[in-house]
């Protein structure tokens, strides 16, 4: 009941999906439509799990007055205010909900990602300091691709954008193709392990 039935559900649905892919018929299309409609009805409840998890983590910190608990108040307050504004005034243009998205969420997430420019650069300096011929090749390829994307690259020499494009079209394509094939084989192997009930870690521990 605790592990066997979920496992049977996965294996049964898994083989039905294999049949759906290899045996095109009205029954297989009906099965797929049925699964999609059920999966769509199940999925919104996963968000409830996320909200509860966030409330439990931060609620516990506030309750216990853990170090820096004040920031947890900020998180929960922001969550409640944003969600309530969406329900109360809608999500269309000109509503407080969209204002919060455009002037709070979007600038902060863009800035957060832009911070990575500094950290990528410093991490790259530490990691790839041309210690070996391969690391030098990596740095040179990165430099040419970066210069090929900006006007100054073309201003220095017309060869820079052309070389950047060649790197992307030839050695990069070979690398991506080799890696993608390996990833594909890995995905197939892992899917087969789940399908046959060998891989069960997604069920968690007892």
């Amino acid at each position, binding site marked *: 009941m605790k592990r066997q039935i979920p496992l049977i559900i*996965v294996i049964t649905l898994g083989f039905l999906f294999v049949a759906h892919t290899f045996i095109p018929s009205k029954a297989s299309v009906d099965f797929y439509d049925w699964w999609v409609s059920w999966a769509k009805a199940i999925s919104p409840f996963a968000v409830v799990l996320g909200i509860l998890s966030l409330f439990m983590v931060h609620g516990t910190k506030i309750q216990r007055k853990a170090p820096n608990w004040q920031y947890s108040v900020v998180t929960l307050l922001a969550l409640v205010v944003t969600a309530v504004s969406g329900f109360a005034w809608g999500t269309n243009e000109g509503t407080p909900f969209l204002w919060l998205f455009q002037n709070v969420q979007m600038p902060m997430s863009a800035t957060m990602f832009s911070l990575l420019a500094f950290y990528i650069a410093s991490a790259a300096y530490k990691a790839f300091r041309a210690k070996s011929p391969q690391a030098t090749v990596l740095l040179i390829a990165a430099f040419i691709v970066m210069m090929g994307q900006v006007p100054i690259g073309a201003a220095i020499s017309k060869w820079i954008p052309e070389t950047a494009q060649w790197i992307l079209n030839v050695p990069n394509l070979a690398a991506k193709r080799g890696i993608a094939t390996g990833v594909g084989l890995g995905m197939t192997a892992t899917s087969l392990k789940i399908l046959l009930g060998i891989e069960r870690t997604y069920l968690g521990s007892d």
Partner: protein
Amino acid sequence: MLEFISNLIAAILTLFIFSFLYKDNPFYRFAEHLLVGVSMGYAIPLVYINAFIPFVYRPIFLEGNLWLIIPSCIGILYIFRFTRNLSWLSRYPIAFGMGIVGMGVPMSMHSSVLVQMRNAMRPIDSINSFLIFIGTVSILLYFYFSKPHKGLYGKFTNVGIWFMMVGFGASFGYTVMARISLLIGRIQFLLGDFLGLIK
């Protein structure tokens, strides 16, 4: 006036996050926690409007499709994750979603292996196509660990490392450029929209 206040708040929050470049500080932590809360709060009404209403509420209560009560009840089982004795019930919705793995076997084999192989098996009619062929084969052999990478075979697999390094360099260059364009966007906002120093 509203535009000024909006830009002021966005600018202050942007600076709060940039303050992390100096060191971890209360302003950054405030912005970080605010971002988590607002992001999650943003998702809730959208999921309600775009997923709950059209796929749960409308079919069951307005269209009378009572069969969907069953997956709704399965979905509610997610919440039992937090209970000590009944947490195993949350495996049922997970198991229902995991069933699609059966489709993953042929799909991943097709899209990631067969399509790649088909494109790799083109006639070698130029130096570039020869390089692509050598690169693909040497990378695949590099990841074949059942045979020791020694002698001529080892030297050939070593060619795969060089190709991968160029590929990683290209990906790295692209990632850095994407982040820098975001940084330029934020600086343009601060100097242009907020301070009006650039047009």
